[in-house]
């Protein structure tokens, strides 16, 4: 084990590779390193990738062919109505993995190790959400392919579609932060799953992602139309199907900004509290 040794009697730590004062550069570099780690982990736990892609495909097939025939939507074909809902559903379900993964790191002790390293604090969380962003880009790309394969057509041109997808990805990024905050709070992957799944189900299935809100009873409609997943789905539809979109898009952007603000702060506070 002589290679472990240093010469002489005093151990001098390796010099930092950059001035300690450059905190922003350090935070960005650490964030990229942590994101790289999370993406590798994702590639090497195929279940996670399968959950992120196969599962929304099953929803597409189910709703396109099994249930869709019985669902009437005004003014458009059901498949064009469905796909914006599926994009939202895919990234919302994906966010469950964020909470579970982070809770896993908490339980395994990896976060304890990160806390003792001279790395940027926020990078642990920012790295995970950056990795989720990359994962969501992939998932959305796959879902567009699946959508086109089952007859999805864009009435309002490519600009509308890309605008909608940009909203989906931005929304997913905000949702990642929300589930980071949740994962830090429960500190156990099973509990994270148990907390995140009902929450996501509630938001996705009370929204108009799969069926129009008008078919729901009044009290459910009131909740279902005033929550973030519904705001995303409405904005997406307005952009993809055409028609006046500004109002819906603004509401969606407001949700994204609000969620980001609240949950970045809550997540950062949750991470700081780990040491209390």
């Amino acid at each position, binding site marked *: 084990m002589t290679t472990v040794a240093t010469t002489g009697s005093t151990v001098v730590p390796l010099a930092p590779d950059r001035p300690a004062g450059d905190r922003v550069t350090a935070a960005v570099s650490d964030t990229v390193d942590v994101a790289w780690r999370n993406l590798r982990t994702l590639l090497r736990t195929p279940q996670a990738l399968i959950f992120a892609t196969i599962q929304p495909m099953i929803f597409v097939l189910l709703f396109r062919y099994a249930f869709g025939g019985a669902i009437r939507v005004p003014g458009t074909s059901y498949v064009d109505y469905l796909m914006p809902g599926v994009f939202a559903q895919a990234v919302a379900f994906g966010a469950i993995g964020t909470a579970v993964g982070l809770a896993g790191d908490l339980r*395994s002790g990896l976060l304890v*190790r990160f806390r003792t390293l001279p790395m940027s604090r926020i990078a642990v969380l920012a790295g995970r959400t950056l990795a989720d962003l990359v994962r969501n880009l992939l998932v959305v790309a796959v879902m567009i392919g699946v959508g086109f394969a089952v007859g999805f057509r864009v009435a309002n041109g490519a600009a509308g579609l890309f605008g909608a997808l940009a909203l989906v990805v931005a929304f997913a990024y905000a949702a990642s932060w929300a589930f980071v905050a949740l994962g830090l709070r429960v500190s156990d992957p099973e509990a994270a799953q148990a907390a995140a799944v009902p929450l996501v189900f509630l938001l996705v299935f009370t929204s108009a992602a799969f069926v129009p809100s008008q078919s729901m009873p009044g009290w459910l409609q009131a909740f279902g139309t005033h929550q973030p997943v519904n705001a995303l789905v409405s904005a997406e539809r307005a952009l993809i199907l055409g028609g006046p979109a500004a109002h819906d898009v603004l509401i969606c952007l407001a949700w994204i900004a609000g969620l980001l603000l609240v949950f970045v702060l809550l997540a950062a506070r949750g991470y700081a509290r780990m040491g209390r």
Partner: protein
Amino acid sequence: MSENAIEVDGLRKTFGRFTALDGLSFAVAAGSVLGLLGPNGSGKTTTVSILSTALRPDGGQATVHGLDVVADAARVRQVIGLAGQFAAVDPNLSGRENLTLIGRLSRVGRKQARVRAGELLDGFGLSAAADRLARTYSGGMRRRLDVAAALLHRPPVLFLDEPTTGLDPESRFALWDAVRDLSRTGTTVLLTTQYLEEADALAERVVIIAAGRVADTGTPAQLKARFGAAVFDLGFGAPGDAETAALALAARGYVTERTGATLRVRADSGSGAVTGVLRALDHQVPDPMSVAVREPTLDDVFLSLTQGGKPA
């Protein structure tokens, strides 16, 4: 910087109603190995977590290399490494990837991290497995990788939290060698363990903690002398036989403790202890079916602390 690499003064920490640390104070001389011993729940991991800046104390003070672990946490992190039961490696990264990641996050440059990772993988006998995912490693290999990760930026102070718990003897001895090598080159090591034997093998000084306070401190030799030199485990055919033997031994001043048909006997001095105990078991006592003589363990030490040396 003082000549103590670590100073702990009146450290307090509670979790809800549970008091983990209740005014803990000790110091570790620079370049030495200190063994922090105690049973589960005595505050060992809490102490290490606070010293490694992962946890904030509720009260008291602690410094590492003269740097306060709360006020100067960021600078403390540049001089410490942590490995052990609650520090982990990523099972989905290879050994090499784990080390380079930790290296990058420890502010070691990309190239240097790669070189250092190679050195450490070599040094810890992990070269052949370097590019396998850590989830395929054995417990011993994982623990060595964990220690290697803690050493990446060459920290002058190393915390090892129960580094050998659950390891087979071969892996344990390999880790002991690694700790000795580090100590030889001037690294200060704070090692927590449940095994007196381990502290004996590695540590210049031992601090025994119980319920978040220092219960005793000294060199391993001093502690052993204080707690008796040898422990006999005598196995009898029936609990009644063990009871009879316990009475005979107690009459000669031996401290015994019976569990079923097994009798544990503490002997104060090593020389003459064997003949002394066997002589106490004279012809009126049934012969034990098994006799084992061993060094006291931390369990024995704690039993004697809590029972105050009264005959069982």
